[in-house]
C-alpha cells in the first residue's frame, strides 16, 4: 500500500486502481478543528491541482486539491456530521474523497513520506 504526499499537504493512498485522498496530520493541525467538509459530486472529473473538496474551520474555508487527475467516486460520508474526524484521524478514518487515477504516471511527481516529513519539519 503506497502513500504519496503533495506540497499542498494532501496525502493519496493507492488502493488497487483507486486513490483515497485526505489531508496530512500537519495540515489538520494547522487548520484547527474542522466544522464542515464537502467534496465535488461523484462523477466529476477533476484535473490534478483542481479543488476536489473543501474543509472549513470556524474561521476559514480551505480547498483540497486533487493530487492527480481523475473522477470523483465518493465523499467520506462520516465527515458529513463530524468533520472533526479529520483532526482526530487525518490519515485514516478521516479520509476525504475516493477518486480514480486517470494517469498513473502523475504519481511519480508526488512525494514519498520521508520527503514530505522533511518538508514540514
Amino acid at each position: 500500500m503506497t502513500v504519496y504526499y503533495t506540497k499542498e499537504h494532501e496525502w493519496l493512498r493507492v488502493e488497487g486502481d483507486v486513490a483515497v485522498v485526505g489531508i496530512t496530520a500537519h495540515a489538520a493541525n494547522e487548520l484547527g478543528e474542522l466544522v464542515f467538509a464537502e467534496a465535488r459530486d461523484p462523477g466529476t472529473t477533476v484535473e490534478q491541482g483542481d479543488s476536489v473538496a473543501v474543509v472549513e474551520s470556524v474561521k476559514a474555508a480551505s480547498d483540497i486539491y486533487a493530487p492527480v487527475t481523475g473522477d470523483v467516486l465518493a465523499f467520506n460520508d462520516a465527515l458529513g456530521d463530524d468533520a472533526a474526524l479529520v483532526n482526530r484521524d487525518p490519515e485514516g478514518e478521516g479520509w476525504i474523497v475516493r477518486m480514480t487515477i486517470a494517469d498513473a504516471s502523475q504519481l511519480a511527481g508526488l512525494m514519498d513520506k520521508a520527503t514530505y516529513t522533511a518538508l514540514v519539519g
Partner: protein
Amino acid sequence: MNQPLLRTPLYDLHLELGARMVPFAGYDMPVQYPAGVMAEHLHTRAKAGLFDVSHMGQVRIRPKSGQIADAAHALEALVPADIVGLKPGRQRYAVFTTADGGISDDLMVTNMGDWLLLVVNAACRDADFAHVHDALNASCDVEMLADRALIALQGPAAEAALVALDPKAAGMRFMDVAQMELAGVSCIVSRSGYTGEDGFEIGMAEDGALTVARALLAHPDVAPVGLGARDSLRLEAGLCLYGSDIDQTTTPVEAALEWSIQKSRKPGGARAGGYPGAAIMAEQLTDGTTRRRVGLRAQGRAPVRGGAELFADEAGTQPAGYVTSGAFGPSVGGPVAMGYVAADHAAIGASLFASVRGRLLPVVVTALPFVAATFKR
C-alpha cells in the same frame, strides 16, 4: 505596505503561550493559541478569555477651557451619539459619519471626568486621529495615546478574576468606567467588550501590560484567546466588524445601529443633527432604508462566508443582498452570518438563498444577537 509589523507589549507573552501570530492592521497579533479557535471561543463563553487588543487606537480629547462639556459638544460635530449627556465614568458606542452618511469608523467614547477617551479601530487610527484633530483642535488638545496597551477580559468568570485583583470591579455595571490599581499598575477599566459576554476592557501604560496580563492569567478560569475566536464571538453577539459589516458605503440606519443615535440627536431632539450626513440620517430614520443589516442562519452545516451573494429565489435570479461576515458559530453549533438585504426581505424569518461555491444554500433572516448577551446592566 512593506513596513515591518508592529508588536504590542504582550508580544513575547503570546510567543511564550504558543500563539500562532498573523499580521493584522499592521501588527503581529495572536490569531490563536494551542487550544484552538473552537476551544478558545467556548472557554470565553463558559469561563473567561483574555484578549490582547493593544493594537487598537486610543485618543485623548482635553478641552482647553477645562470644561468637559466643551469637548463633548465639539465631538458631537463628528458623531451622532449623545456625548454631552454621557456622564463621568460612563462609556458609549459611537460612529464617525461621513458627509454621505457613511461610517468612517466605529468607536467607544468614555467620559473620564475632565477629558474624553476614544478607543478606535487599529486600521482607522491615523485617519481618525487626523479627523478628530482637525475638527477639534481649536477647542481641545487632541492627543494619540500611543504608549497605552489594552487587554480585554471577557466571560462569566471575568468579574471574579478581576475582583481577585480589585474588589471594586464587582460594583461596576455595563459601560461603567473606573480607575483601578491592578497588580500595582494604574488602569482604566470599563465594563464592556466585543463578545456579548459580561467582561472588562483594561487600559494601562505599555510597561504595565505584562504585569496585569500575567496577574489575570494566574486565575484558573482565565485563558488566552486570539483574534480568531474574537471574530466568532463578536459575530455570534451580532456586533459589527468595521471594514466588513460597516464602512463608508453603509449608513448607521442601514447597519441597524439606530440605537447608537440617542433621542437628543434624532430629529426633534435637543441637539438634533449637527454631524456629517445628519440630513441623510434624518431622512432614513423617518422613511427607512432600501436595505438593512440582518442576521442570517444557514440551514445546513456549510458556513456562509463574507462576500457570498444572497438571492430571493432558489434559482438565483433575484438578487436580494450579500453577506458581510460569516463563520461557524461554536456556541450556536452551526453557521452564522450577517449581511445586507433588500428591505422587503429583511423581516425576521424571511427565506433567502446564499451562493456558496456555485450552490444556493437556504438561509433564514434571524434576529441578532445569535447568542443572548449577558451584560451586567
